[in-house]
C-alpha cells in the first residue's frame, strides 16, 4: 500500500521555513543578514487619522523609532514583522506601520495572532489593542493568549474610555466616572489590566506612559526582546473624551514624585530628590522618606524574575494618592512558549520513519479487497 514515491512531500513547506508555494510561485530570495532600517522604513503611506493631540501618535512614533534597532538586534527583516489589531482607535495602528498588518474584528486580535505565530514562528507578531478591545469584548482571548505563553507582543493602550464610539465608560474607567453612558457615574469596579496578566501567569508584564517617550521606547524594546507572551499597558491620553485622565501623576511637573520607575535588582526609590522609597511591613507596602543618597537597607528591591509573582502582584496594587504609580517591567521570566512546544511536537512526529505517507494513512486500519 505504501507509496512514498508518488505522494507529495510536505517536508519543505510546513512553515518551518519561509512561505513557499508548491506551484509555480517563485522561490523567495535569501533573507539579508544585515538589517539597517530607518524610522522612515516603518512609516506607511497612509494618512494617520487619529485626533490631533491623541496619545496614540506618541506610541506610533516610538514604535517606528525602535523598530530599526529591534530588527538589527534580532536579525529579522522588516517583512517578518506583523502588527495585528482588533477594533477601536488603537487598532488602527497597523495601517500606519509599513509592515505586514491585519486590522481584524473587535477583541479577537490575539486569536489571529495565535494562528499566525503558531504556524510561522519566525515572524515577530505584535498585537495592538485597547482597554475596551482587550479587556471587555476580547478579555477571554487576552487571558488565553497570556496563559499559553505564545510568543506575542501585546500592547494595550489604556485610555480608560471608549473613544471610537464617542465616549462611553470602559472596563478600566474609575468607579463613579461620568460619561455619555453613565451620566450619574458608573457603578462598576474597574479592571486592573496588570492583575489580569499576572493572574494568567503572563511571563512578561510591564507598564509605561505615552508621554514619557524615552521610557516608552525602552519598554517597547524590552517587549520585543522577550520570548513568550509579553503584555504592556500604556497609559494613553484621549484628549477628546477623557482628557487629563493620567495628569495627576503623568504631568511632567509632578511625575517624579508621583510615579516610580521599577528597575530590576535595584531598591525601589522615587521622588525628585530621590529621597523616598517603598518598604514592606508584613504584606503591606509603605512609603519611607530618607536622606537622598542614603537609602535604608530594608527598602524593597525589585526583582522582575522572582520565582513567584507575589512581588509583581503587590506592586500592581500601588496607586495614587498614597503611593507613586509604578512604571516599568513588573515581571519577566522565561518559560517555554506555546509555539516552541507545538513546533517541537510537529518536528518530532515528522521525523519518524514513514511520516507523512498519505497512501499509507488512508489505507490504514482493516481493509478488504474486492477482485
Amino acid at each position, binding site marked *: 500500500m505504501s507509496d512514498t514515491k508518488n505522494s*507529495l512531500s510536505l517536508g519543505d513547506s510546513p512553515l518551518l521555513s519561509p512561505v513557499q508555494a508548491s506551484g509555480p*510561485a517563485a522561490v523567495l530570495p535569501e533573507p539579508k543578514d544585515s538589517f539597517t532600517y530607518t524610522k522612515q522604513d516603518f512609516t506607511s503611506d*497612509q494618512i494617520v487619522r487619529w485626533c490631533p493631540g491623541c496619545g496614540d501618535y506618541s506610541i506610533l512614533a516610538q514604535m517606528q523609532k525602535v523598530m530599526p534597532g529591534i530588527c538589527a538586534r534580532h536579525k529579522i527583516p522588516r517583512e517578518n514583522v506583523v502588527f495585528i489589531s482588533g477594533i477601536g482607535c488603537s487598532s488602527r495602528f497597523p495601517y500606519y506601520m509599513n509592515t505586514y498588518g491585519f*486590522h481584524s*474584528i473587535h477583541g479577537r486580535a490575539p486569536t489571529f495572532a495565535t494562528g499566525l505565530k503558531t*504556524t510561522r514562528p519566525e515572524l515577530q507578531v505584535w498585537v495592538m489593542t485597547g482597554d475596551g478591545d482587550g479587556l471587555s469584548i476580547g478579555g477571554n482571548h487576552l487571558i488565553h493568549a497570556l496563559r499559553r505563553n505564545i510568543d506575542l507582543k501585546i500592547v494595550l493602550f489604556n485610555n480608560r474610555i471608549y473613544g471610537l464610539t464617542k465616549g462611553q465608560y470602559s472596563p478600566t474607567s474609575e468607579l463613579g466616572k461620568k460619561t455619555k453612558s453613565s451620566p450619574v457615574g458608573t457603578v462598576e469596579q474597574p479592571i486592573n489590566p496588570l492583575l489580569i496578566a499576572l493572574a494568567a501567569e503572563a511571563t512578561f508584564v510591564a507598564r509605561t506612559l505615552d508621554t514619557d517617550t524615552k521610557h516608552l521606547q525602552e519598554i517597547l524594546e524590552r517587549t520585543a526582546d522577550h520570548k513568550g507572551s509579553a503584555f504592556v499597558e500604556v497609559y494613553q491620553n484621549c484628549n477628546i473624551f477623557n482628557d487629563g485622565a493620567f495628569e495627576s501623576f503623568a504631568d511632567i511637573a509632578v511625575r517624579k514624585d508621583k510615579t516610580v520607575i521599577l528597575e530590576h535588582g535595584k531598591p525601589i526609590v522615587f521622588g525628585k530628590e530621590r529621597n523616598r522609597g517603598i518598604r514592606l511591613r508584613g504584606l503591606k507596602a509603605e512609603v519611607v522618606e530618607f536622606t537622598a543618597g542614603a537609602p535604608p537597607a530594608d527598602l524593597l528591591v525589585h526583582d522582575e524574575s522572582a520565582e513567584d509573582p507575589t512581588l509583581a502582584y503587590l506592586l500592581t496594587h500601588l496607586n495614587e494618592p498614597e503611593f507613586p504609580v509604578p512604571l516599568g517591567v513588573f515581571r519577566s521570566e522565561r518559560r517555554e512558549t506555546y509555539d516552541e512546544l507545538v513546533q517541537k511536537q510537529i518536528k518530532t512526529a515528522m521525523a519518524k520513519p514513514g511520516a507523512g505517507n498519505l497512501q499509507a494513512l488512508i489505507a490504514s486500519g482493516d481493509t478488504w479487497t474486492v477482485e
Partner: protein
Amino acid sequence: MPLKTEESTSGHKPGSIEEHENVIIRFAGDSGDGMQVTGSMFTHNAALLGNDISTLPDFPAEIRAPAGTLPGVSGFQLNFSSFDIKTPGDAPEVLVAMNPAALKVNLGDLTQGGMIVLNSDAFGGNNLKKAGYAVDPREDNSLAGYQVVQVPVSTLTVLAVKPTGIGQKDAARCKNMFALGLMFWVYDRSMESTMRAIREKFGKKPEIAEANILAMQAGYNYADTVEIVPNQIRVSKAVLPRGTYKMIMGNEATALGFIAASKLSGRPLFYGSYPITPASDILHELSRHKDFGVYTFQAEDEIAAIGAVIGAAFGGALGLTGTSGPGIALKSEALGLAVMTELPLVVVNVQRGGPSTGLPTKTEQADLLQAMFGRNGECPLCIVAPCTPGDCFTMAIEAARIALTHMVPVILLSDGYLANGAEPWSIPRVESLPKISVKFATDPATYKPYKRDPETLARPWASPGTPGLEHRIGGIEKEEVTGNVSYDPENHEKMVKVRAEKVARIANDIPPIEVVGDPQGGDILVIGWGSTYGAIDQAVGRVRRRGGRVSAAHLRYLNPFPNNLGDVLSRFEKVLVPEMNMGQLRLLLRDRYLVNAIGLNKIQGQPFKIKEIEKKIEELL
C-alpha cells in the same frame, strides 16, 4: 426476506441456514451499556466479511443519563447486505434490548414479526417502573406478533468471565459482548476480526480484553447450544466494484480529506476548533496526524478557533475550522472578515438539530440558509455538501481546492448522520486525487493587494515574510486594486458586486449536476443535498422499477449551483425536494429558477426512511 434454505457449512453444528439479502439489526440499551461499541464491532466485522454496510448510531446528548430510564436509551442500527444498500434501513427486523427502557423506546420501529432479543435479567421490578411499564411487557401480550428470545445476559456474562478474576463491576460491563456473541451466531459470523479488534481496543488492559472475548464466545456458544433461533441466517458478500475497501465514518473521512488536501496543495493544515457535538471527532482525528505537519489548536471558544484559522491562512496555511450550528453562529463575524479579506479557509459545519442547543446528537439540515446568508452585509461564500460518509473525503478536498484557488471561504455542510454513519469506502490511489495548485505573490513591482485574477477574480495571496509586499488588510471596505481603506460609495458597490461575482464564477470550476434516471426529462425530479442521498436514491430506484418516470439528482455544490441546474430542473414536470428542514433548498431553487418545487420535509432529528420518500413520489405521480 429469506431467499433459500441450505445446510450449514459453517462447521459449528449441523443445522439449516437461511440466506438473506440483507439484515437490519438495532442494538439498544442504557447509555452505559456499550451499545455504540457493540454496533460498531458488528459493523466492522460485517464490513471485513465483505457485506455492504450502512449505520445509524442514535444516542442521547447526556453521557450517562440515569440508568434504566427512557432518556438514557442509546441505540445503534446497522444494515448489512449482499447488495448495494446506501441507507441503514427503514425498520429493524431484529431488536436487541438490554433493558425494558430500550424495549419501550424501540419497539415501535421494529417490523411486524421481527425478532426481539431481551436481557431477561434486566426486567426486574424497578427497571420496569423506570421505563414506565406498569405491567411486565413480556406477560401482557404486548409482544405477541414478535419472535421473543429471552436470555439472562447479565448472569451468564458474569459466570463466563469469572476465570479472568476481574471485579464484579468490570465483569458486568462485558454483557454487551455477550449480546454481540449471540448475534454473531444468529448470523453465522466468524468472530476472528472482532477478537483482534477487542485486543487492540483494550491493549493496555489484557485481562479486560480477555473478559470481553470470553463474554462474546459465551454468547455465541449459548446461542448455538440452545439454538435461540431455529435457523441461522447468512448474508453473503456484496458485489461491490473492484478495489480495496475499508469501513469509514463521515468525520473520519472529513479529517482524512483535509490531510490529503494539505498534501495535494503543499500547504500545511491548521485546524482550529472548540469541542462541540457532533464535530469533535474531526479534532480528535486530526490531532493524531502531526506527522503530516498538521497543526491542531483547541481554542478557548468558537471565535478564537476561526480567528486563529484566519491568522494561519494569512500566513499561508490551509486554514480549517470545524463546528456545528451554534458554533457557526459565533463564527459569523469572523467569517465576514474572511470574506472581506478574501483569504482561503474552510469551515466544516456538522449540522445537528436546532435552533439554539437544539438536538446535539441528532441530525438535521437546517443550517443551509445560515451558511448562505447568516452574516451581516452582502457576504457570499462557497458552500459544498458531501452526500455519504465516504463522500466527506472527496468533498473535503473539493472545499480546500476551491478555497485555495479562488481565495474564498468555503463552508462544508456535513451532518450528524454522515458524521457518525459508516459505509465501505473504496480507498483511492493518491495519484488519482486532484492536484491543487497554489500561487503566492512574490513580485513587489506588480503586487497590489486587491488586484484580481481576470478569470477567477481571486486576489493574490501574499504572505508575511515576502520582501517588498508589506501590506495591511482588514475588515473595513477596501479600495479596489490597492486594498486601502475606502468609504467611497461607488467603490463599495463595486466591491460588493465583485465579491459576489467571484463566488458565482466558481460555477465554471465545478462539475455539472447529473441526473440518475431520465436525463432528458420526465414526470418527477427528486432533488436533494447532503445526507438524504441514500434514501432518495433508493426510493427513486424502487419507483422506477415499478415503471414510474421519476429521476434523481443530488447537489454537492450549493453555492454556487452547478451551471446546468436550471436547465435540468426545467426538463421535469414536477420537482420534489426532500430535506431535513422546513424547505431551505426549496426556497433557494424557487428563488433562483422560478420553479414550482414541492417540499418533503422531516424535522425529527432522524434521517428519511426510504418509504417516506417513496410514498411522496407515488402521491405526485
